[in-house]
C-alpha cells in the first residue's frame, strides 16, 4: 500500500507526524505515517489489535523513549519544531502533551494530591486557595467531583475503575496541556461509565486537542470529528489506511479494507 498524506480538515494543526517509522529492536512496528491533527478537534485512531495505534499515539509525547529497545525515525512537528530533535527535552513535550492511559493508574496518594501533584511540580504559582480551586475545577471538568468531593483525602486507589479513570483525566487536564492523548480510556469500563467519559471528551474539546485510540466503533463514530484507520501490512508493520472526517470514513470509506473493518468483517 502506498502512504497517504492526509489533510482532511485544513485549518490550524496541533501536531503533525511526517514519515514516522517506529521500531522495537529490529522489528518495524509502524511505517511511513504522515498525519496532521486539527486544533480543538477529537481524532479517533482505530484499527485491528497490534497494528501500532498505541505506538503512534505514544510517539506524540515521546513516551516510547521509556522503552529502551524502541527507536523512532521521522519527524513530529509541534509548534513548528521537531520534538525528536536532539535539543528537545522530552519533559518539555510531555508538559504540553498530556496522556490518559488504557488502564487507570492513579498515584497511591490522596485524590487531592493526585490532581495537585502535577500542578505543583510544573511550577503552579497559586496559593493554597488557588490550588484547592484548581483541584475542584479539574475534578468537575472530569465529571468526577460529585463522586469524590467528600473523600478528597482518601487514597485514589479507593475509587472504582471508572472513577479512577476520570481522576486520571482530571490529573491530566489540571496541568493545562494543549493536547491530550487517550489510549483506550474507556476499555476497562462499563457502558454507563464509558458514556460519561465520552460526554466528558466532548466537553473537553472546547479547550483541548484530543487524540483517542479506541476499539469501539460506535464510540469512534459518536465521539470523534476525524478518524484515522490503521492496518497491519504483510510484514506486520502498521500503516495508515485512511484518514478523514468521521462521517465520511464511516459512511463512505474510500478503502475496501476500512469498510470491512468498520462493519466487523475483519479485525
Amino acid at each position, binding site marked *: 500500500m502506498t502512504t497517504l498524506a492526509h489533510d482532511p480538515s485544513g485549518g490550524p494543526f496541533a501536531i503533525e507526524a511526517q514519515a514516522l517509522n517506529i521500531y522495537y529492536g529490529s522489528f518495524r512496528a509502524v511505517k511511513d505515517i504522515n498525519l496532521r491533527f486539527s486544533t480543538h478537534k477529537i481524532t479517533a485512531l482505530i484499527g485491528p489489535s497490534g497494528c501500532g495505534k498505541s505506538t503512534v499515539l505514544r510517539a506524540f509525547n515521546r*513516551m516510547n523513549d521509556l522503552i529502551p529497545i524502541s527507536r523512532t525515525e521521522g519527524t513530529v512537528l509541534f509548534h513548528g519544531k521537531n520534538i525528536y530533535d536532539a535539543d528537545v527535552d522530552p*519533559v518539555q513535550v510531555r508538559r504540553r502533551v498530556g*496522556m490518559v492511559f488504557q488502564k487507570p493508574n492513579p498515584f497511591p496518594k490522596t485524590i487531592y494530591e493526585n490532581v495537585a501533584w502535577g500542578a505543583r*511540580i510544573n511550577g503552579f504559582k497559586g496559593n493554597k486557595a488557588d490550588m484547592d480551586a484548581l483541584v475542584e475545577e479539574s475534578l468537575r471538568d472530569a465529571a468526577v467531583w460529585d463522586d469524590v468531593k467528600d473523600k478528597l483525602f482518601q487514597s485514589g486507589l479507593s475509587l472504582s475503575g471508572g472513577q479512577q479513570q476520570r481522576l486520571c483525566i482530571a490529573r491530566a487536564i489540571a496541568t493545562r496541556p494543549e493536547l491530550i492523548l487517550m489510549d483506550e480510556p474507556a476499555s476497562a469500563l462499563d457502558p454507563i461509565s464509558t458514556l460519561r467519559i465520552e460526554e466528558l471528551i466532548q466537553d473537553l474539546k472546547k479547550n483541548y486537542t484530543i487524540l483517542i485510540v479506541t476499539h469501539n466503533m460506535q464510540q469512534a463514530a459518536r465521539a470523534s470529528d476525524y478518524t484515522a484507520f490503521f492496518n497491519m501490512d504483510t510484514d506486520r508493520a502498521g500503516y495508515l489506511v485512511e484518514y478523514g472526517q468521521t462521517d465520511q470514513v464511516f459512511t463512505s470509506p474510500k478503502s475496501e479494507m476500512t469498510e470491512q473493518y468498520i462493519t466487523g468483517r475483519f479485525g
Partner: protein
Amino acid sequence: MSDRPLPTETPPEPAAEQGDRFAALYPSEEGIRAQVARRQRVATGWRVAFLAATSLAVVILSTLLLSIINQSFGLVAEQTDIPEAQLVADHYKSQVLGATNVLLATEDDADIAAGIAADANGIGLLGYAVYADNGAALQALSVDGVAPTAETVATGTYPLTRPLLLYSSAAILSDKPQVAAFLLYTLQHAEEVMSELGAFPADATALAEQAAALATTLGLDPAAPIDPAAYEGDIVISGSSTLNPVTREIARRFRGEGFQGAIKISSVGTVAGFEAFCAESADLVDASRPITTVETAACAANNLTPLSVQVGLDPVVVAVNSANTFAADVNGEQLAALFTTATNWSEVVAGWPADAIHRFLPTTDSGTMDVFVNTVFGGRTLADLPYDALVQIFKANVTAGRCRAIEAEQRFYADSFVCDTEEAFTARCQSDAAPTGCVLEPRDKGSLVALIQADVVNPVVQQAWFLAESLFRREEIMAEARQAYPTADVHFRRWLTLDFLTRPQSSQPELAGVRTAILGSLWVVAIGILVGFPVGVGAAIYLEEYADKRRRFNRFIQTNINNLAGVPSIIYGLLGLTVFVRVLEPITSGAVFGVGDATTANGRTILSAGLTLALLILPVIIISAQEAIKAVPSSLREASLGLGATKWQTIWNHVVPNAIGGIMTGVILAMSRIIGETAPLVVVGASTFITTDPTGPFSKFTTLPTQIFQWTSRPQQTFLLIAGAAIIVLLVLLFILNAFAIYLRNRYARRIG
C-alpha cells in the same frame, strides 16, 4: 453512518468430532473424581510437610532460647573475701558508735539499762529480757507503730526481731555426747524455761521438729526425754548475753537432774562466742544472729562445720527513760537519726526538746547492734555510702602498696592523697613512665564502688548450676554446696541484671558487664547503616532507573554485586583491615582531624569497623532495594512522566516512596546481620579487653558478639554463664532495633498510602 446491515452469519459450530476427541482424552466422570482426590492428597501431603518444617523450626528455636535462659539463671555458690553487706553494716555501726554523746558502749545489757534509767535524756538498745527486768525505769519505743510484745514478736511484725540460736558442730556432738545431750535438752525445755523468764521461745512445733531431727542424727530416740544423769564430762558454752539467762537456767536444771560434769557459761557477746567456738575453745555458742560467712571461713580453717538450732526470738528494744514524755513511736528514718546524725532530740522530730540525746549502746560485736543496723540500714549497698567512707573502706582492706598503685592509676581526691605522699607522687609524675593518675580527673563514686567490689569483696563463683537443676534439685545442690564450699554463700542468681547491663567489662566474671559492648555495638551498627543505607539505595536506584541493562559493563557490575552478597564476612574484615585500618589510618584514627584517642592513635576504631560493616551490607541493601524498585509498577512511572515530571521527580515522589517498604525490609535484614557479626570486627581490631566507653567514631571499641565470643572461649564456667546472659542482651537489642525499623517503615508506608 451505519445504515449498512449488521453481519448476519451465525458463529460456526464447534466441530463435534473434534470436541469428542479431546473430551475422550480426559478421564471419565468417576476418573475425574479419583483424579481430583489424588491431587488433593498431594496438596495435603505438601501442607503436612510445610507444617512439619515450621514445627521443626519452632522447636529448634525454642530449644535454643530455653537453653540460653537455662544458663542465665540458677543457683551459685559464691565466695567473697568480705561480703558487701558486712562492709556496709560495719560502716553504719561505726556511724552509730561514732555519734555524739555515746555515754556508754558495753557488752552488758544490764549496764545499758542502768544507764538509761539514770538519765532523763537517755536512749539505748538492749535485749528484751533485761528490759523486762527494768520495766519501771524504762519504756520501750514502738517502731512504725508496733510495740515489742509476745504477739508482735511471734508474728514477725515488730521489725527489730532477731533469732536466738545455739551453734555447735557435728564433730563436737559426736565426740562429746554430753554436749549433744545438753543441746537436745535445751530444745526440749526451751519453751518452758523461756516463757518463765519472760523471753520469747520459738514456735513449739518448730522446737519439737528440730529436737526430733537432732535426736535422729545422734542416733537417739526422739520420743524419749534426755536423762542428764547418764552423761558426764565438761560443757563449755560461750556467747550472747541475751541468751545467757536462758542457758543458765537450763544448765541449772540439767545439773539438778543429775548431770555429773561441769558446765562453764560465759556471756561475752555473739562475736566473741563464735571466735571461741571456731578456735575450739567452746562447745556451744549462744548466738543472737546467724553466723557470717567470714566466721564460717574461720571455723572451716579448723575443720569445723557449724550447725545450728533456733530456740527463740529476741526483740531488740529501743528504750528511753521512763521520765521521757515525748517519745513513744518512731519510724525507720527517725531511728536512723536518733542513733547517728542527730545531736539533739529536736533534730529528730520538730516538737521534741532541744536537749542532747544521750546514747547507751551495745558494742560493735553484739548481736543487738547487728540486728539494729541490719533492720534500720538494711538493703543499702556500697553505692549508698559516702565517697569518703568508701575511700576509707578501700584503704583499710587492701595493702598499702596496692592502695598506692591504685592511687597512681587514678587519684581519689584532687587536692589530697590517701595512700601516697605528695612528694612521692610528684616524683613519679616527672619520671618517664608517668602513671595515668597524673593526667586523669579523680575517681568518681561508681568506679570506687567497682574497685571495692573487685579488690575487697572479691566475689568468686565457685560453682554455678543451671536453672533446671536449680529448680528441681535444689535441696541436693544446697547440701552438695555446703559440703564442697562451706564458706560460700549459696543463693539464686540472675546473671542478667541491671548491673550486668551497666557495668563495663571486667576480668572477674562476677563483676563483668556489657555496657561497653552495647555502646560499641550501637555505634558500629549506626555507622554501618548510616553509610550503607544511602550508598546502597543510591546504587540500587542508579542500577534500576538509570543504568542501561543492555550494556555489558552494567550487567557485569550487577553480577558482581550479586556474588558479593555471598562472600564470607571475614573477607570484608580483611578488606577493612587493609583499606580502613591501614591505608586510611590518618582518617579513621581521627589524626587528620586532631581528635584521635591519644592512647591508641591507630585505625582500629569504631569508624573503621562501621565502614567495614557498611561494605558488608551494601550488596544486601542494593539487591533488596533493586527488587523493591522493580516491583513498583511501570504504569506509575508513565503516569508521572506523562504529567511532565522529570525522571528525578518521578523517582523521588513515586518510585522510592512505593519501594520504601521493601527497601526498609532489606535494611532490617542487613541490621540483623551486622549486629551479630564477629569475624570481620575481630579482624578490623575489636579490643579484647576494654573498660572505657566509646565516646565517638575514633574510639577503640568492642561489640556484644565479640564480647560473647571471647567469653565463651574462656575456661572458667562463670564466663560461659555471663556469655549466655549477653546473648539474651544481644537478642533483645536486635529485637528493639528491628521493632524501631519496622515502626519507621510502617509509619512511612502509611504516609504515602
